């Protein structure tokens, strides 16, 4: 199963942490040395990795059951985790066989151009390194169960071309968000309240 986590997190407590792996040593004479720990042949560390912390508050039996099963999948296998700071909106009716979707500002963080998001085709948003761990999630604004994860072919300033056509039909105002392939680690907390309300705190770490 290859699924995204299509629930919208609470604004409070949401953060994206980008980090590189290196060591720092201070020599006797005060010179500070930074050593890149990544192996030349190890492409997985050629770019900054991402951790996403997010809180969800979910109401209703259906949503509670869905998010619980998605958390299990995210722990046992992996899940496509949206980067909400880079969220944009679809700016047209987007349906098969079209593969190029027009996007616009999401108003979350004024992403006036795809260059300001993590969308850069098969490249990473700010280092332009190849980055296979990133895809695009399309999601209906009115029904978050209408969503799918598609590969990105190329990116222009206000449109994104995917490698295949969508299964569903999306309209203006629906979401398009970059997603990273992530696992949910141990600090993920799930609390079920009376069967109908779940509070979830997760830390999703990029694979």
């Amino acid at each position, binding site marked *: 199963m290859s699924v995204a986590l299509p629930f919208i997190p609470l604004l409070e407590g949401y953060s994206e*942490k*980008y980090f590189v*792996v290196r060591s720092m040593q201070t020599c006797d004479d005060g010179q500070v040395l930074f050593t890149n720990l990544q192996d030349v042949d190890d492409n997985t560390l050629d770019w900054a990795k991402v951790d996403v912390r997010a809180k969800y508050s979910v109401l209703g039996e259906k949503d509670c059951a869905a998010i619980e099963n998605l958390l299990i999948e995210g722990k046992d296998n992996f899940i496509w985790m949206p980067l909400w700071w880079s969220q944009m909106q679809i700016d047209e009716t987007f349906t098969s066989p079209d593969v190029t979707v027009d996007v616009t500002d999401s108003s979350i*963080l004024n*992403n006036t151009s795809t260059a*300001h998001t993590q969308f850069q085709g098969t490249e990473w948003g*700010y280092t332009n390194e190849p980055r296979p761990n990133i895809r695009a999630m399309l999601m209906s604004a009115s029904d978050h169960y209408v969503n799918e994860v598609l590969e990105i072919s190329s990116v222009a300033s206000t449109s994104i071309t995917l490698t295949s056509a969508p299964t569903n039909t999306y309209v203006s105002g629906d979401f398009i968000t970059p997603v990273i392939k992530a696992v949910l680690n141990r600090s993920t907390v799930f609390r079920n309240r009376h069967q109908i309300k779940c509070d979830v705190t997760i830390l999703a770490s990029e694979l």
Partner: protein
Amino acid sequence: MAITRGTYGGRAVLLYTDGSTSVESFCIPLAAMSRKIINNYQLVGYAWETRAHDSIKKTQYELDASYVLQTGEERKVLMDFWSDMTFAKFYIPSWKKDYNITTVNSTTSLDISRSYIELTGVTRHVAVFADGNLTTAPSYRKITSSNVDATTDRIVLDSAVTSMTTSTVICNLFLVNMLSDDFTISNFGKNKTVVSLNFIEDQRATL
């Protein structure tokens, strides 16, 4: 106009302008920068160590700053900076009035309040906000000499800055490395995010 990164002495400065004379507000830290003087050296060296204690000033500043980002473009600009500077040194203003001018002697010579300034063995660069307004792009200068007497310290800049008055704000300009490998974008408020960065001065490399 485009957001433009500052440069001084062949290095980047963590200070952005609009391409003209206005400083972009996102690069001015939230509240004051935290600064810490560190000196992690043994009091007495071992016999086999050949450290030139007199010629190397070992005290370093450790600086912490938070930046509030309100648009996707600002986020990308700061993330690009972090990515570019992972292994590079750059300058950062202290955003603090480090020198209190009492008399402007000339376009290069300034008397400052007694502050026990001690520049022997220490190279200091400064960002001069001549009109005292932090939103007007500063001039970057090097302090070439200092003179200390009983009541007044005098500093001399390496080249002229016009229109200096006693209201002029002079900040130290520290040559630093990124101290943290993290770039965490957290929620700060509606349509606002906050990023905290840590820097460590490299006094020895400050020429």
